[in-house]
């Protein structure tokens, strides 16, 4: 199980980074261009969800890869 946790650590880092890129480039950027009320989801994607998922998930993955969750 510990090996699975460590391997999954790479998956979480990739998933976090990928989700951050997807949210900003494919979701937020077109909304920033539209303006108006679309700025609200653009702000949420750019400043709330993308950093939270990318940084949080990547950090979780990093800890997992380092074996921090082995003894849980």
């Amino acid at each position, binding site marked *: *199980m510990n090996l*699975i*946790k460590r391997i*999954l650590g790479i998956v*979480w880092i990739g*998933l976090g980074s990928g989700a951050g890129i997807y949210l900003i480039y494919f979701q937020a950027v077109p909304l920033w261009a539209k303006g*108006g*009320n679309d*700025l*609200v*989801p653009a*702000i*949420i994607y750019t400043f*709330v*969800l993308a950093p*939270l998922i990318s940084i*949080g*998930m990547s*950090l*979780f993955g990093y*800890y*997992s890869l380092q074996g*921090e*969750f082995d003894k*849980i």
Partner: protein
Amino acid sequence: MSTKKQSLAYIISASSVGTLIEWYDFYIFGSLATVLSTKFFPTDNPTAAFLNTLATFAAGFVVRPFGALVFGRLGDLIGRKYTFMVTLMLMGGATFAIGLIPSYATIGAWAPILVLTLRLLQGLALGGEYGGAATYVAEHAPAERRGFFTSWIQTTATLGLVISLAVIMATRASMSKEAFDDYGWRIPFLVSILMVLVSLLIRKNMEESPMFAKAKAEGNISKNPLKESFGNKLNLKYVLLALFGATMGQGLVWYTGQFYAQTFLLKICNLDDIQTNMILVIGLLLGTPLFVIFGALSDKIGRKGIMMAGMIIAVFSYRPIFDQMYKTVDVTNKTVIPGSEKSILNGNTMTITKEFTDGSSYKNVITEVSTDKTESKISIKINETDQWTLVGYVFLLISFVTMAYGPIAAFLVEMFPTKIRYTSMSLPYHIGNGVFGGLMPAIATFLVSNAQTAGVVQKPYLEGLNYPIALISVCVVIGIIYIKSDKKAAS
């Protein structure tokens, strides 16, 4: 009943009533968003319209983790009791003040700015309240029954919504539509101050949590809870695990079942608003006892299994359930009663009505806003049998909520040590519920709207579910693999 049991019952009641009132305060803003937008956020002013969207859909939720940090820190430094007394006063004061703000027509731009500021204060207060109440009850409860006792706190969020809907419906019923739109909408906000005062009186006599009092007496409280909670890898990894392995999925199950179901029926199915609220209230009331049942069950068979089961069932049943809900309201394949279709033109408004053989009715009010723009408001009423069918679906959705949410307070409390518990459990809870969950209805509605515009998928009305299904699935994988199995509740 023994003295100890009486005292615990009092502790749970006093804590739960205060938390329930905070949820009530938080929800009436959302439930009255349509009226608030006409009073404070005129659509002809783009900035005000923007602030409206921000205030209604995002601000109150996004600010909750900050409230968790501010008040969680206070709770770990000075105590649970005083901190959640402060959050209660802050919430009550902000809610009461919203009821007093003059309209945009009277004070101009100050109106939307004040409303947004007070909404932020509401979010901050809520961010501090829940962690305090859950910690306080859990620290009084015996370890082997912690799930059962904290589950009463878990019922408050649902009951808060029910009471907010009931107060609004009662206020609407007691006056004309014009009077409600003129001043009646302020009553649910103003009433809040009475509830808060009663709750403060009840909470005033409560004693500090025994675990915190003991830690304080032994000089074992944290000097810097924020640093110890998040600046220390040993604890931060648990915060991340609590977030991605539990509260993210739980928050999404909760907001999909309880709030998106309402948004879906109202905005995507175009069901009549009174019928929608009635269906929701009945479904919520029928489902509420399950919070306590699953909370108690988690003491016997463990928290993790129940929470994960709730999330897994939700992931696999969301699309079929929401699909059936849509089809139950949809009038496309229903038979129109011959001669029932009518179109009435009144000024710049065209009203089209139809009646169907199964007892359903359809009304579309099309208003010409300008020479090249019309607005359409569809409202469908369904027959009683279909209404009960929808109650059944809402009940199913709520039952998943109770599985994921019922044991979560005990689960989070058991994850962190007393001296940083308030701070450490509040942040993942409010990111999971406030950010991932709270933003869910707005994001899902946005995804549906995009899918309808693009027209490339067969069932665009289900596209909003992709967001919760994807994130809950990730949460389930993390939860199953990383969270320790707890067949016997931790002490």
